[in-house]
């Protein structure tokens, strides 16, 4: 089945959330004029990232993380000319330049940094190719998406987007019964904790904003972050849906109601 669309309709954060929650494996391609990127996921974790602007390079990542000096970088680049990332990694570990953990962490930091740039893409085509595997000559990482998602949601500046997600501040929020993410892996900011402390079906979002001294955009941003993290859901204030007075069934007692629905079932079956 296709998983494709445009980032203007389905934001990058939402896409990551989907990959994360569904534990997807495969390649996500995103492209806009003059730029494209490929992200590989394995069981909902980021495994590899490359963009048309910059291919990942192990030695550069290690230099950026200050695991090797600029001089070592120049020497090793010459020595490891033609080596794949995997071969270079094995060489560096065996030669004592870095441990396997340090290599993995350096790549994770590098991927996460470059990957974050995609959060600013408000438009661009995307498609997910399920089952696409990491090339054997690359070093896989296993980067959790939860914090990237929360961070990305935090950075989402588009007020229009926020207004579309949370159209009214007169609604309340409550904690979901089944949070979509493992909350132990999520780091909240002090402001987010402040808002969390007021989450209660009786408090409207506007009231929480007043209590926490947040403006309309800030409160929307925090609530959006909590929504994306799967921690809260929006409800009517008081926690009870506003029912329109009137009867949902025209008959009185439960047995009659049940009989009526059974008659409907029989009729639909016979169509």
């Amino acid at each position, binding site marked *: *089945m*296709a998983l494709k669309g445009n980032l203007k309709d389905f934001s990058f954060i939402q896409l990551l959330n989907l990959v994360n929650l569904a534990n997807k494996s495969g390649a996500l391609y995103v492209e806009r004029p003059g730029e494209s990127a490929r992200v590989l996921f394995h069981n909902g974790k980021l495994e590899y990232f490359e963009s048309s602007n910059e291919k990942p390079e192990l030695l550069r990542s290690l230099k950026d993380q200050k695991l090797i000096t600029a001089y070592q970088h120049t020497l090793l680049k010459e020595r490891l000319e033609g080596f794949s990332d995997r071969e270079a990694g094995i060489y560096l570990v065996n030669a004592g330049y870095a441990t396997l953990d340090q290599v993995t962490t350096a790549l994770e930091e590098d991927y996460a940094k470059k990957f974050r740039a995609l959060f600013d893409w408000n438009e661009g085509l995307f498609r997910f190719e399920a089952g696409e595997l990491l090339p054997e000559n690359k070093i896989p990482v296993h980067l959790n998406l939860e914090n990237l998602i929360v961070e990305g949601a935090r950075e989402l500046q588009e007020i229009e987007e926020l207004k*579309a997600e949370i159209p009214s501040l007169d609604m309340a929020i409550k904690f979901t019964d089944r949070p979509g993410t493992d909350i132990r892996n999520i780091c909240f900011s002090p402001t987010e904790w402040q808002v969390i402390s007021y989450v209660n079906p009786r408090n409207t979002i506007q009231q929480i904003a007043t209590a926490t001294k947040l403006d309309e955009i800030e409160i929307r941003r925090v609530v959006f972050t909590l*929504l994306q993290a*799967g921690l809260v859901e929006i409800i009517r204030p008081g926690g009870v849906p506003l029912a329109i007075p009137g009867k949902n069934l025209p008959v009185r007692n439960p047995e009659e109601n049940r009989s009526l629905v059974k008659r409907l*079932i029989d009729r639909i*079956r016979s169509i």
Partner: protein
Amino acid sequence: MQTQTVKIVVTGPFNAGKTEFIRSVSEIDVVSTEKRISATAEKIKESTTVAMDFGRITVDNDLVLFLFGTPGQKRFDFMWEILSEGMLGFIVMVDSTRPETFREARSILETFKAYAPTPYLVTANKQDLYDAWDTEDMRLALRLDPSVKILPCEATKKSSVKRVLLELLYGILKEMDDNEARQNNQEDEIS
């Protein structure tokens, strides 16, 4: 004896397939309030529902089921609340090939949930098309609770529409049983 009428509402974004859905099972020609579309941006089909679609299934001499389709375009949303009054349950129809409508579908779902606490389900229409999203991906995109049913559907096929209606009715029956069990438990606790 006076004929009883019950209604099920079919809602969802513009061009999700609501009119086709009702047309597939209604025993009368669907009473439709379609108008030619004027806005260029919305011109992916020639006409759209502006007030409601209305289909009918006669159960027996004293029971009739009405199917009401809501207008999909946002500027006609004042009709939604009127149509939802007294509904037995509702169906949110989503075009599986148009992720750009998922956000709106979620907003419509939340609106109808707030109108009345009746059972509902979500149908992923146009599942026969190449571009259709997988229903489980749609569940995540629409942020549906695992307990909410999302069913693949082809609104033009009677068998597919029947299956959706039956699932909704089974859900209504189950909710009745659950409510009764809850009530019995409360009575036991009191006594």
